[in-house]
């Protein structure tokens, strides 16, 4: 179908309606309210429908972007959602949390002169339109193959792998350590960025496709990988990178100092913001200091603000331009009044007689020389120490691999830092029939890359269980092709 060429391209993205900063900084409702059908069609009209769509090369799962945008422009939203779902199982999630400025939108031809097409916002619109159409349509699944696959971890990687395998007719069981499925999507990313109902709906869909989800099952403790290998035809490990890192500076064990994981888990998973209706408490500080500059730091800072803090400061080693968080989140955080202490690094945390944190001492950083990666290396400026008042400090300086599975399965090859070694294309590990992907292989990355890994592994597992799995399981363990 011929799509009419636009007359004159608007240089700016069609603005998306948002809750005003003064209101939203005190509630947990979603920040962006989403396009209307008219706004979506208007934004879709900015797309040039390039012959060689570079945006698609920027998407880790290859969403057919120009095709779905063309459908949006014609207001054929049903076709749009079907087109997206060819490649992306969770568009309502990705449209909201993908770092589009580094992916699809970065490569958009328009971006050379103007704002790129708002691909993320359009994806989100289409997914929300689909959700508003009433009950979930359970996708058709192939006839049962009689093969059983276990998936460890219910984050985006495990969920995607489960979806693909279930569709292919395999019998899938997901084991999740926590009492709720969803991984970082439920315990990490806050409601105001990703409503929990979206994730709940996707999990409901999997269940209706026949996937079994076993919660409270810590693999490595309750069931070992070895036992899974005996009971299943294949296994996919997608346990994420959930082990919080600390800075090892004095005062880190004072009360009021949290890892971002603990702070966000108390609030998102345990609903501490509704304490005492819910039983789990969290310290409600008035002066909050968050250390770090990624999405996790930004989420912690904005969550603390919503709990009623007077002042929230983010301490980050480098400059504003280098903040690794999604651009949109940084923009929102600034609008909401988060104070940015940039080019600064904490050196110690100070406490009072009651063992509770009172302030964070930081030092200014000079960004001069370039390091190996070509980024400016922050160097402390002598004598530049200053203190930021704090009654809650949240450390968001990264996470590592949880060691539980590696500890209980010595034959699984892991890196020095306990990440699982797996083939990039197939997810194959050193154990026959055992695949791995997502953050537990790559280290903390993105939702979409974790999903991409789940999808590739599902394809490899499908081949394996149909053709190879009859071979004796253990005899043929082999090291995976190691790629770097």
């Amino acid at each position, binding site marked *: 179908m011929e799509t009419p060429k636009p007359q004159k391209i608007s240089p700016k993205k069609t603005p998306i309606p948002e809750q005003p900063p003064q209101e939203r900084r005190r509630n947990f409702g979603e920040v962006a309210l989403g396009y209307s059908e008219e706004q979506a069609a208007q934004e879709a009209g900015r797309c040039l429908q390039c012959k060689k769509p570079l945006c698609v090369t920027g998407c880790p799962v290859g969403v057919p972007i120009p095709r779905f945008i063309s459908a949006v422009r014609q207001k054929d939203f049903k076709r749009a959602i079907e087109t997206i779902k060819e490649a992306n199982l969770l568009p309502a999630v990705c449209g909201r949390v993908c770092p589009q400025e580094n992916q699809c939108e970065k490569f958009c031809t328009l971006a050379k002169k103007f704002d790129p097409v708002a691909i993320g916002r359009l994806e989100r619109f289409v997914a929300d339109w689909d959700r508003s159409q009433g009950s979930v349509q359970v996708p058709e699944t192939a006839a049962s193959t009689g093969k059983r696959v276990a998936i460890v971890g219910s984050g985006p990687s495990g969920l995607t792998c489960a979806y693909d395998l279930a569709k292919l007719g395999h019998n899938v069981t997901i084991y999740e350590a926590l009492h709720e499925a969803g991984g970082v999507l439920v315990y990490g990313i806050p409601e105001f960025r990703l409503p929990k109902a979206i994730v709940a709906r996707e999990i409901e869909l999997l269940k209706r496709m026949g996937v079994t989800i076993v919660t409270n099952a810590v693999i490595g403790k*309750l069931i070992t990988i070895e036992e899974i290998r005996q009971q299943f035809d294949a296994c996919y490990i997608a346990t994420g990178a959930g082990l919080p890192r600390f800075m090892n500076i004095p005062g880190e*064990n004072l009360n009021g100092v949290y890892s971002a994981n603990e702070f966000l888990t108390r609030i998102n998973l345990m609903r501490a913001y509704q*304490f005492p*209706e819910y039983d789990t408490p969290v310290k409600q500080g008035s002066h909050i200091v968050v250390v770090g500059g990624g999405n996790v730091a930004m989420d912690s800072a904005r969550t603390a603000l919503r709990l009623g803090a007077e002042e929230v400061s983010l301490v980050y080693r480098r400059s504003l331009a280098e903040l690794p968080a999604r651009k949109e989140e940084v923009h929102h955080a600034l609008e909401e009044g988060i104070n940015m202490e940039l080019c600064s690094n904490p050196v110690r945390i100070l406490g009072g007689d009651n063992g509770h944190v009172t302030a964070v001492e930081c030092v200014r950083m000079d960004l001069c020389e370039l390091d190996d990666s070509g980024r400016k290396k922050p160097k402390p400026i002598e004598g530049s120490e200053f203190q930021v008042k704090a009654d809650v400090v949240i450390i968001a300086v990264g996470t590592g691999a949880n060691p539980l599975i590696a500890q209980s399965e010595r034959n699984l090859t892991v890196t020095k830092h306990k990440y699982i070694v797996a083939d990039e294309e197939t997810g194959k590990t050193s154990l026959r029939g055992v695949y791995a992907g997502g953050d537990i292989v790559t280290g903390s990355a993105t939702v979409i890359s974790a999903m991409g890994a789940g999808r590739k592994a599902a394809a490899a597992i499908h081949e394996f269980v149909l053709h190879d799995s009859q071979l004796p399981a253990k005899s043929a363990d082999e090291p995976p092709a190691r790629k770097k």
Partner: protein
Amino acid sequence: MALIKEKRLLRAPDVFYFRIEAPLISKKARPGQFVIVRLHDKGERIPLSLADIDADGGTISLIVMAVGKTTAEFTAMQPGQDVLDLCGPLGNPTEIEKAGKVVLVGGGFGTAPLYPIAKAFKNAGSEVVTVMGARSKDLLIYEKEMLSVCDRVLVATDDGSKGIKGLVTNALKAELEQAPADLVIAIGPVVMMRAVAETTRPLGTKTVVSLNPIMVDGTGMCGGCRVTVGGETRFACTDGPEFDGHLVDWDVLMNRQRKYIPEQKHSFEQWKTKHAGVVCE
């Protein structure tokens, strides 16, 4: 969901024994490990030690002392009811080996998790002596059970109503002076474990303590349970809960346990007003 099969009052008014259906956990659990329970969908996740493991019967036993809202709610539950979430076994098991003489020191509900540990050491062929303490004899728990598996059980009470008058550490010291031990394991209130570690330090007796900082997930994900051992930050849920008592930084641990006192009080008071007279008052 996990079914409560049996409940018994262990010590009036607030310590109860529960036997809970947990076929998978009971097959895997070893002495020294713990579980995390969440009673209902607004509930907190709380850690509880395994007080017995019956793999054949498919059950585990827990001893719950009502000290706050969640533990009080738990002790108000009845056989036939379900605990919403039961997760485990968590933490590392006690290293059980034939160890010559082992002295177990229990205080408060800490004697209960020592029971499966005592059984295991006995089965491994060690001499097992238990020292248990309380303010007075009515507050002792698990004495009978301990007597059934240990070579000797020594009791110390503050008021002298039973056994030696004084602290467990007095009894422990006397016992070690009589015949040294190869291993001491202490489980109980932090002040007690700290005192035990100080008692054995000059003697150089290997001393294991089971730390109980506040936890959330119990899987190494939140870092809320971090403790300082030998100058390093360790996670009690995945690196512990047992650590070398001589290396633990007790001040850090005691401070961190006080973290939520105002919030906990608030939550408990609200609950008590709503459920006046249900338990333990």
